[in-house]
């Protein structure tokens, strides 16, 4: 029994981190129809920012989080201007951006590798390897803090998108760019802003990741497929779906890891993805496709 609770806790703890990593991806897809394969690589960029701040000046990763978010948001603006703006009007936008973001991921990886080498890094604030023990059961504090912070950020964001005027403009632009323009929305600005927010989330996630996992520039390939499974499972573009999917899958993976074998725990994500495609292609919270 104790072990079951312990495994559950570990699964949930990991889920919190993945939730934030996945939700930025989900957001950018949801509002902009961009499948941002570069997202994980930008998370790593955020992690590096946090790492150096910690190493050079001893700044706590959680304090660094907003700064990393802002830095990455700025990079997002730059990226958008350089890479995505031209394509924004194309009918093949969604498909094109998959490839563009893929290429971006390689650029980010190459640039990070050039600057910081491929050595794996991790920040070590004291709470990163600490745990709260309740009897024999423990809650890892690093992941606990990360989970709480990530849920806070996600909720704030979801509310902003749903209820603010700007949030509405973002969604409107995604759905019908021309119409939004005809109603007076400066669509280009909207696109830049929402991209910046999405990438900013990657920066924030990077800060959390920096003390939960170790990272190096090429690490993002490991995450891409996992994060994507979360997003698809949750239903493309649904942030709530992504969050729930992360918790669900991480818990399942934890149990698989504990009771079936560590090798199979990573498999959980991909198998779940296939099962969901088999029985419910639109994911948990996605919209049903037109043709059944």
């Amino acid at each position, binding site marked *: 029994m104790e072990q079951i609770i312990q495994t559950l806790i570990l699964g949930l703890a990991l889920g919190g981190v993945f939730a934030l990593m996945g939700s930025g991806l989900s957001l950018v897809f949801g509002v902009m129809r961009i499948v941002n394969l570069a997202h994980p690589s930008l998370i790593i960029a955020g992690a590096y920012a946090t790492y150096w701040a910690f190493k050079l000046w001893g700044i706590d990763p959680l304090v660094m989080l907003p700064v990393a978010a802002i830095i990455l948001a700025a990079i997002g603006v730059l990226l958008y201007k350089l890479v995505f703006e031209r394509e924004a009007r194309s009918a093949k936008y969604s498909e094109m951006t998959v490839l563009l973001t893929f290429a971006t991921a390689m650029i980010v*990886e190459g640039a990070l590798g050039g600057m910081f080498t491929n050595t794996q890094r991790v920040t070590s604030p004291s709470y990163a390897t600490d745990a709260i023990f309740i009897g024999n059961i423990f809650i890892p504090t690093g992941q606990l803090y990360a989970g709480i912070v990530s849920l806070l950020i996600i909720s704030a964001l979801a509310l902003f998108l749903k209820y603010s005027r700007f949030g509405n403009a973002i969604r409107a632009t995604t759905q019908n760019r021309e119409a939004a323009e005809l109603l007076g929305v400066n669509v280009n600005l909207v696109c830049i802003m929402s991209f910046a927010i999405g990438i900013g989330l990657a920066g924030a996630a990077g800060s959390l990741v920096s003390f939960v996992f170790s990272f190096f520039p090429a690490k993002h390939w490991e995450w891409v497929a996992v994060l994507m499974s979360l*997003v698809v499972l949750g239903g493309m573009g649904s942030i709530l779906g992504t969050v729930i999917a992360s918790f669900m899958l991480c818990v399942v993976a934890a149990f698989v890891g504990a009771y079936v074998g560590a090798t199979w725990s990573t498999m959980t994500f991909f198998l779940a993805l*296939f099962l969901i495609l088999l029985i419910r292609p639109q994911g948990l919270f996605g919209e049903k496709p037109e043709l059944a």
Partner: protein
Amino acid sequence: MMSVVSETLTGDAASSVLEARRAHNEKLAAKSDKARAIWFPIALLLLLLALPALQVIGNFNYVLHLVLFTACYVTMASGWNILGGFTGYISLGHNVFFAIGGYFAGMILARYGISTILMAPFAGLLCAAVGYLIGRVTLKTRGPSFIISSLALVMIARILFDHWKFVGGANGVALPANDLSVEWAKLPYYYAFVVLAAFSVWLSYKIKHSKFGLGLRAISKDEIKAESAGIDTRTYKVLAFAISGALVGMAGAIWGEYLTYIRPNIFLIILVSVNMVLMCILGGKGTIAGPVIGAIMIIAFNELFVATLGASEINILATGLLMVIVLLFFPQGIVGTLAKHHKLPRILNWD
């Protein structure tokens, strides 16, 4: 107020606009009629078939290796093109077929000593069957979800192969090398790949100009419309998936023996599928010559980089940059974009 009749309906005005319109249409029509240069790929093929004669005067293994390597990727990229280019389903998981083909033929070689070149067609059939089954599931999704499902496919295959003790798990299997002398050792694979590449180009051509191909193109544009136009979209796309998987599988079969070593990590890394995609995009998705040109360019580019820059992270950076630049400036690939602007040299028009 007087009725302002600004211009009467004399024929002139009307016909001049009509004229412009017609000229425009004729230009479009001309594009599709322009005699394509079939002779060029055939000449190229003949040249390549004769190339190994060089071995008589010296050791040109490296040249053969490059051609062979390119031909391998031409096969794979053309295969990918049938699904990704014609049908519009971007798969980042086609290296799964590469692996299945490689392992199937490789294990038969290791256990029974039958050359993979003979087994390649069977590897193709196996991959087609697997592709059919997988396609039934993953092709239910569309667009981004499909892309991601294809990524997941690679991960699953990777984990399965990594733990399949019979095929050596993550450590892989070393295959016996043939016992030809250094100069001639590459020849069987060389010819196998060149023929395979020619076959896949020919097959894509055939498909593109068939009812099946038209149906695939319709699917890539609007599946609901295609379905209600009487096209059995599900079967069509699964079939396209199977065919493209078969081509990639055949390439994988021979590749394993050529490397004398099979291991999940050779086949199931993202770079392999990215290369396929990148080649098609660079050359021109949905065109016949596109994957060929893409393959040549990417491999030449890689060689150039390794030779000049030596190596570093700049490799990755440069590949990424190249990809971005191509996508931004040649969104339809080199062949596609040139054709759109009516600047495609005749020798590259194989469609």
